[in-house]
């Protein structure tokens, strides 16, 4: 393309005017919320493929491969049962302690893995993020989906444990599906929020183990939180303990699967709390992540 001798009509423009004239956009501008959500929807196949790939990749160097997907929750349950069920004998008053413990562990693990995976979703995938352009929310969402797949495998193991410990099959088991669905929404929001925090505060990764352990002890995974109510004499603190979203999700799954699981609050109240937490964290986390979209992969 030879340069024409005619005077270039663009020659008098400043760089900014030139950009405006040809409709160039500011590099790395944030799309509107609606546009972002639409973009994310067109990338749903990528989210699913990435989540699957992560599941496969996480076991690819182990000789037993995907058998570990089943072995990991089983081994976890065995260790905790040995310490808390057999040696320390914390099961006082809880019928079917092993099933009680396993539900707590697996449900808690879903959220804790999504949260710690979320923290590293951006900071641990900088290569991918800097190489290709896609809505960044894909990565934390894929992290949640990966963990959901792990939870589903763990649930199959759990059903085996629950049946082996003599629980009857009832229609109430179906309540596991909405409970896990609400928890998945909660986790997606949590992973999105943690992803933005983790992208900025690189120190957060080191702190996460402490935060998660504290959360685990507060969620009645290994024992009933009634012990807290006995020792915390402040009713506000007791209410805070009972509103803990993880306690709510764990109790809902226990309520669905186990006949005589003790509940800290009435079932309708638990369902309401579960829905409120899912909505609050799900929507809040998404908005928070979207507002930082143009920053990811920088620095």
């Amino acid at each position: 393309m030879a340069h024409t001798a005619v005077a270039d009509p663009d020659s008098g423009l400043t760089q900014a005017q030139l950009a405006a004239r040809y409709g160039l956009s500011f590099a790395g501008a944030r799309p509107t919320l609606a546009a972002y959500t639409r973009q994310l929807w067109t990338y749903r196949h990528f989210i699913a493929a990435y989540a699957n790939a992560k599941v496969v990749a996480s076991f690819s160097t182990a000789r037993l491969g995907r058998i570990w997907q089943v072995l990991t929750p089983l081994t976890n349950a065995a260790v905790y049962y040995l310490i808390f069920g057999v040696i320390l004998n914390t099961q006082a008053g809880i019928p079917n302690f092993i099933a009680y413990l396993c539900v707590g562990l697996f449900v808690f693990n879903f959220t804790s893995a999504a949260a710690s995976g979320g923290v590293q979703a951006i900071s641990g995938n900088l290569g991918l993020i800097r190489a290709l352009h896609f809505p960044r929310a894909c990565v934390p969402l894929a992290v949640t989906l990966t963990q959901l797949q792990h939870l589903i495998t763990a649930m199959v193991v759990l059903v085996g444990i629950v049946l082996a410990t003599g629980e009857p099959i009832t229609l109430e088991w179906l309540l596991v599906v909405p409970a896990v669905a609400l928890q998945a929404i909660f986790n997606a929001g949590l992973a999105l929020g943690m992803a933005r925090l983790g992208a900025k505060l690189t120190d957060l990764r080191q702190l996460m183990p402490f935060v998660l352990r504290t959360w685990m002890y507060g969620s009645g995974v290994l024992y009933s939180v009634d012990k807290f109510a006995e020792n915390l004499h402040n009713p506000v603190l007791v209410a805070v303990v009972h509103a803990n979203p993880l306690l709510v999700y764990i109790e809902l799954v226990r309520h669905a699967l186990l006949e005589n699981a003790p509940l800290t609050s009435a079932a309708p109240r638990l369902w309401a709390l579960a829905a409120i937490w899912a909505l609050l964290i799900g929507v809040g986390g998404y908005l928070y992540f979207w507002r930082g979209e143009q920053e990811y992969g920088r620095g």
Partner: protein
Amino acid sequence: MADQTTTTRPTSTTPDGRRIPTVVVDDAHVIYRVHGAGSAGSNTPANALRRLVSRVPSPAVREVHAVKGVSFTAYRGEAIGLIGSNGSGKSTLLRTIAGLLPVNKGAVYTQGQPSLLGVNAALLNDLPGERNVTLGLLAMGLSPEEVRRRAPEIIEFSGINERGDFASLPMRTYSSGMSARLRFAISSAKNHDVLLIDEALATGDRRFRRRSEQRVRELREGAGTVFLVSHQIGTIRETCERTIWLESGVIRADGPTSDVVAQYEEYTSGK
């Protein structure tokens, strides 16, 4: 005009013969922060907690002023080479154009979304090459049907199967040249408005370099703009007709490749 209705490919000029800009850089300054510059032991959990609470910036963070007031305009159909010594700000400039680093002063305007293709564009190393092709194409926004259709031709182009069935082996078993070739093959599968290539062609062998130079030419004909960072002057000469020479974050020269390269070679041999 009739021409434009029959062809779907965008042309590189407006009907009245003006060139269409794709990247406009206006007095861009980039200062980036580097993490992990401090001594070992400053990243213990206790210190991390203390910093989070007291909001004191980590001593391990240092600022680098990498691009100092760069302005230029790139047009559709151009291939622009970026040359300069190590640490002159070439890669930083590319990352800024890609929208991955913010400008601290000035502005960068782009047509569509530029794609950066670099040496450390890591995909999932534990997964087979063919799986990475699928993931990479989906990440670029192709539909699953398109991915199924395009995947074989991309593996073919990358040439990773020339020494046996490497496409089904995990990418961590690949040589650096092979994975660079696969990454280039994936990124160049789509027609980008602006494609930024950072040393990605350097690791391939001669035959692959020839093929990828051919691919860069095709991408340009697709009315895109290609930026190429390379220390191999030969590659720049063969693929780019315009070259920008960057030194210490400032443009030393911007013009036809033959002129700029001659100045650059004089500068480097003089030292």
